[in-house]
């Protein structure tokens, strides 16, 4: 069954008709054309599909379009701040936090969620927060470094 949903996507109002069984992940990638969000597993185990839904990081592979009326959604395409990269995007680039890049959008979204809540995370805090984001390439060391460096930038900005 189709339903007309009104929601906010990366700060812009969107109205569209969607089948209620359509996964949010597929709505974003196949119907709206925002392919930054990735499918790694389809079962909520890998975190590659992480988006912000109503301010909270969730696996978009497990969200049905039927419930999106009134939702606020932010994807990796909406992470930048105005014309600038988000600090964690910059540090991922500088520190080498991405190799193949497939886990990276999910890692960035989850890292942003962590830094929004905890501006001074320890390494253990970062590992805990990123438990649901798998990376097959990097061994996580540079990812953790990038999150720590982004936290430092964000703390300095607030000084």
């Amino acid at each position, binding site marked *: *069954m189709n339903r007309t949903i009104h929601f906010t996507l990366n700060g812009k109002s969107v109205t569209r008709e969607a089948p209620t069984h359509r996964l949010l992940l597929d709505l974003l990638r196949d119907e709206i054309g925002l392919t930054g969000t990735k499918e790694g597993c389809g079962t909520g185990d890998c975190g590659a599909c992480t988006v912000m839904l109503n301010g909270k990081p969730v696996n978009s592979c497990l*969200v*049905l379009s*039927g*419930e999106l009326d009134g939702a606020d959604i932010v994807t990796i395409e909406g992470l930048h701040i105005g014309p600038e990269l988000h600090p964690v995007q910059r540090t991922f680039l500088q520190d080498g936090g991405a190799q193949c890049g497939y886990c990276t959008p999910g890692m960035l979204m989850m890292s942003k969620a962590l830094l929004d809540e905890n501006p001074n995370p320890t390494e253990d805090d970062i590992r805990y927060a990123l438990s649901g984001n798998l990376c097959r390439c990097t061994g996580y060391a540079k990812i953790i470094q990038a999150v720590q460096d982004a936290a430092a930038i964000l703390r300095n900005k607030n000084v």
Partner: protein
Amino acid sequence: MKRTEPFEFYQPATLQEASRLLREKGPGGRFLAGGTDLVIAMKEKGLLPNYIVDLKRLPALSGIRQNPDGSISLGALTTMYEIETSPLIKKKFHFLAQSAAEVGSIQIRNRATIGGNMCNATPSADTAPALIALGASAKISGGAAERSISLEEFFKAPGETVLKADEILTEIIIPRTPAGLVGEYIKFSPREMMDLAYVGVAVAYDFEPQKRTCAGVRIVLGAVAPTPIRAKRAEATVEGQALSESLAEKAGNIAAEEAKPISDVRSTADYRRAMVAAMTKRALLNAAVGPAKSWVERRDRRY
């Protein structure tokens, strides 16, 4: 990676409407809470509902609150992350907050609900042992009349509860607990996160720290029987006694006898039994020490 098949989708605004939909439309319907079990079942396990009734617009199902009689109510739609981070839950029963923290990832915990965890009725459900150890009950609406049932009796078999098709679990109620209550939940699994429990052990007791006496002892085992079970003989061994390492070990061995594990892809029955003994001992002793300060301490501490 499979996709979901089309279904009718409803978002009722009242409990009565939600129940009525299930009654009128008949079999082939499912209630939707967070979707972290239902959507996976539709993608991976061949579940094909004709219609889905989303409960998330029902206001009565949200929120954590303390009642005048000292009991705590958890709305069925409370997410695992809300329980993990709730100052009230962390203060009163830290081991319940930690049980919720064991479920999946933060992304999953932002969607997974306590009601869904109960109604999915997996034997290894992480929040069930702690809730049963706390003497929690389930409030059920819809169908004939509102009713209440202790969580210990709520589960019937893997995937099966006492709920009838049009009934909705609305609230989990934790009765008032003694001031000296201590508890611990240990999820035994090979991975630190993102795993299912091979064995789950929750303990709770009223602890008198001078003499180390334990009263109202509850030992609840998950993943080692068709439903979460209380290890009543093990409880009786500790009840009224002064806690010591040897007593905890004895209780662990008895709990292992009461467990009814199976061998499956994760583990053998013998290994699960051995881990029930070890984790029960560890949980009893750790509860007396108090909550760990970090997940790393929680992972690494013995007693």
